């Protein structure tokens, strides 16, 4: 899944280690999420949402469109 985590992190001048510390996960986890190798669970996505002050759907894009 594509996401804007790296972009949002760099905007704030945080390193991967800084973000990992704030999320209480390993830097390896942050890197895996940023590179799209791992999609976080809903609780971790909410943590990211609160940290960056963005809605989850504004940070993650699954490439699907909702049809009415």
């Amino acid at each position, binding site marked *: 899944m594509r996401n804007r985590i790296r972009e949002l992190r760099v905007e704030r001048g945080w390193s991967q280690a800084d973000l990992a510390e704030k999320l209480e996960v390993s830097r390896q986890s942050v890197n*895996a999420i940023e590179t799209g190798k791992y999609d976080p669970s809903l609780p971790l996505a909410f943590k990211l949402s609160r940290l960056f002050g963005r809605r989850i759907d504004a940070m993650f894009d699954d490439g699907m469109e909702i049809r009415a």
Partner: protein
Amino acid sequence: MTYEFGWQWRRSTKAAKTLALGMILTMSGFVLVVVGTSMFLDRHPSQGTQLVVLAALPLFPMLCMLAVVGMYLQSETDEFQRLVRVRSLLGAIAVALATNFFAGMLRGLGAIPSWPPFAEFVIFWFAFGAIQLVQVLAYRVRDDA
């Protein structure tokens, strides 16, 4: 490499450190119990209940090892790290079972002699370590751009 290991250790979660220490302790316990039991049986050939009890002794450190892994899976707060270790466990189970089945067939057909005791157990943990290493390399963090 030493620096890398030190960094990894410092950055490991509390659960991962507990897992590593627990594995070292239980593996050491396993080796001690197996060697101790074998030496005892060499000097004091046993039969019946005593033999069954002595043969069951290595089960305890082995079950403790699995309990340590189970407690780790329950207490790990880093979901990605947990996923990596679950993958390693499943991979190791697959390797151990596949090896056991394949060798079992060959043994059944008389193509190979019987294996040394605990061979599957050793294969399982070697496979776990190897798969873990492959994943560590696959998800290696090179820069912090």
